[in-house]
């Protein structure tokens, strides 16, 4: 064996090919089957895609690096389920390009934060976390409330999402920026289109407390309020799913 190596290490190309071959095996065995084995991702027929406003909010979450301190992955451990809710299923992040499972909980997990607090709480908390929780170490995001949300390119975002496999329809893409506006303006003529395209359960309301203005705060709160509510698959028992 060492004799063989004695010869191999005299060949730069041999060494190169050897490294590529040996290093490729692990990834091929562990990653490729995740695309082919059907049970990897559960079926959830009720799973819906993010609305344009929620997607914009998700992009703000990414932009600000929220994932550095908040996970979105509840593990299959008793204390986590009791603290945060039912453990996360693979299907729940099926449309997450990229996933935001996170790796660190400087703050709590957010996989099921949606609906747990009021919009007013989120706005106050994001504006200055220490107003609602004096010991918090989270940065204040006060500019979100002052910054108008950019919506003119949302149809391009939805198109790119469709290109990577999220089932946005032509209708959704064409109406992306109207839907973004309508979701935060329940009295506007655009509000009905949102529930038509994304389902009756979609949150349509003024998220940031400032009617008539579409701010980045609207988008981020709309996103946080939908976390854990894209499907109720995680709340069903094993028996339900089997039936």
């Amino acid at each position, binding site marked *: 064996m060492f004799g063989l190596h004695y010869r191999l290490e005299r060949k730069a190309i041999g060494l190169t090919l050897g490294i590529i071959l040996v290093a490729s095996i692990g990834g091929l065995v562990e*990653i490729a089957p995740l695309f082919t084995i059907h049970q990897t991702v559960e079926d959830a027929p009720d799973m819906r895609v993010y609305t344009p406003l929620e997607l914009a909010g998700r992009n703000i979450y990414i932009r600000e690096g929220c994932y550095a301190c908040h996970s979105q992955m509840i593990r299959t451990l008793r204390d986590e389920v*009791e603290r945060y809710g039912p453990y996360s299923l693979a299907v729940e992040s099926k449309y997450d390009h990229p996933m935001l499972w996170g790796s660190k909980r400087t703050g709590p997990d957010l996989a099921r934060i949606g609906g747990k607090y009021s919009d007013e709480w989120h706005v106050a908390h994001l504006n200055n976390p220490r107003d609602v929780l004096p010991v918090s170490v989270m940065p204040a995001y006060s500019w979100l409330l002052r910054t108008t949300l950019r919506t003119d390119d949302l149809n391009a975002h939805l198109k790119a999402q469709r290109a990577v496999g999220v089932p946005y329809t032509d209708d959704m893409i064409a109406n992306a920026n109207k839907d973004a506006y309508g979701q935060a303006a329940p009295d506007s003529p655009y509000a009905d289109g949102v529930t038509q395209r994304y389902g009756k359960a979609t949150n349509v309301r003024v998220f940031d407390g400032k009617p008539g203005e579409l701010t980045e705060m609207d988008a981020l709160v709309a996103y946080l309020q939908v976390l854990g509510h894209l499907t109720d698959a995680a709340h069903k028992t094993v028996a339900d799913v089997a039936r």
Partner: protein
Amino acid sequence: MIGQLTKAERQYALLILLGLALCGLIFGIAGKDDPLGIHGALIGVAALAGIFKVISVYYDPEPGDERLTRYYDDPTKFGIVLAMIWAVFGLFIGDWVAWLLVKPDFTFNAGWASFGRLRPVHTTSVLFGFGGNALIATSYYVLQRTSRARLPDQLSPWFVLLGYNLFCVLAVTGYMMGITQSKEYAEPEWYADIWLLVVWVVYFAIYLRTLARRKEPHIYVANWYYMAFILVIAILHIVNNLAVPVSFGSAKSYSLFSGVQDAMTEWWYGHNAVAFFLTAGFLGMMYYFVPVRAGRPIYSYRMSIISFWGITFFYMWAGSHHLHYTALPQWVQTLGMTFSLMLLIPSWASAANALLTLNGAWDKVRDDATLRFMMVAAVFYGITTFEGSFLAIRSVNSLSHYTDWTVGHVHAGALGWVAMITFGSIYTIVPWLWKRDRMYSPRLVEVHFWFALAGAVVYVFAMWNSGIIQGLMWRTYNESGTLAYSFVDSLIAMHPYYIARAIGGLLFLIGGIVGAYNIWMTIKTESKILPQSAVDAPEPALGGEAVLQPGE
């Protein structure tokens, strides 16, 4: 420094820079309503600065053929200086964000200064800015000496070094503007990723072209590691960064994979960025600089073979231990845990090989802070790899995951292993490169050593404590069978450890500043210049290449 370029190389350089300026212009126009436009302008300005620099030396006399009788070390020199600049910057940002967790309002009420955006600035600056520049610089040096061949040309090493730094600057400025893919340690967006790929291909080509002209029949073990580092990082980089941009004028892209597949790909990448950037590359450094500094041959050639192929094979399976108890199928988790445990064998073989190489030179370890840096690095490497295998066990991971224990583990590796082996190597190489008989102040090397060691130990102990306390508080039940502590309770318990961690980081930063000053003074102080030796062998007293070649 680029005066060594021949006429033809100066012309090629201008051509490349013009192409780059054009790219900058296109991005600047296409992305004028987007942060991408600012990056286009930045690329354009960088290219223009390069054009002016090349034009300023364009009509200088061409270098003579006598340059070919010496190794080409100008890019290495520049790379070492860049590495130290990134080190001080990256450590400063790291300590700054550590204080943000103590005093969260130090953000000037601005997005760019908040924890979430600055955290990747820290990680990219230290890992890729400091670590990457040190790897590129030392790899040029080691490759030439162990092959007894000059770099193939004088332009491509500069292209790789400066192109790589452009990538790092795009990355860091991007995060502050909110441009990020959110994939940890792979945050830069699509255009920066494509640029890095181009740079990386040229980098490996330099390796192959130099090796093709080598006068040593065997490729020295340090080069195996450097080659594995370049090759595997390329594979990981390509697969993990597959994405579709929103438009040509937008910095934003959406990753090709989603959910569980994306998570597995990301941690396959993430863990092997640790393996092939922070381990393989720096083991390459270790296999050259420990023996030359100690004046001892590598302890065991066979151990180095076993550890090399063990690391190359096992590491690529280990990434899934980042996803224990998650929605990732359990069979993948189990494979990850199993291979993480097996990894201990090649890891400890490497650490032992380094430490046993010091046998017969322990008196030097006592007297020479530079060698002591490398010895401590090998010890930290051994400790960290043991801890890594331990944390990969599913039941241990259930406690440690999501807590500061992981942060402590990473810093044991990054501060204790990566930074220490780099500082040891830099202190070895700087007097040789600038033809000095020693560092400006050996005393300051000693000072740096103790600051670095104290800082690393304080940091790691603080995070071990906070991590384990956090993990235990989250899972503690009271007598009535309900959770005993709220999340906020655990946050309050972290406060003293966050202060201790920030102090540890500060000590390490002070050491880094002392080191940068010492290196700068060594370069500036010209009183002790050694005569240029005819063969440009680094240290003839070490017995030339015979010491470095693995035994039969």
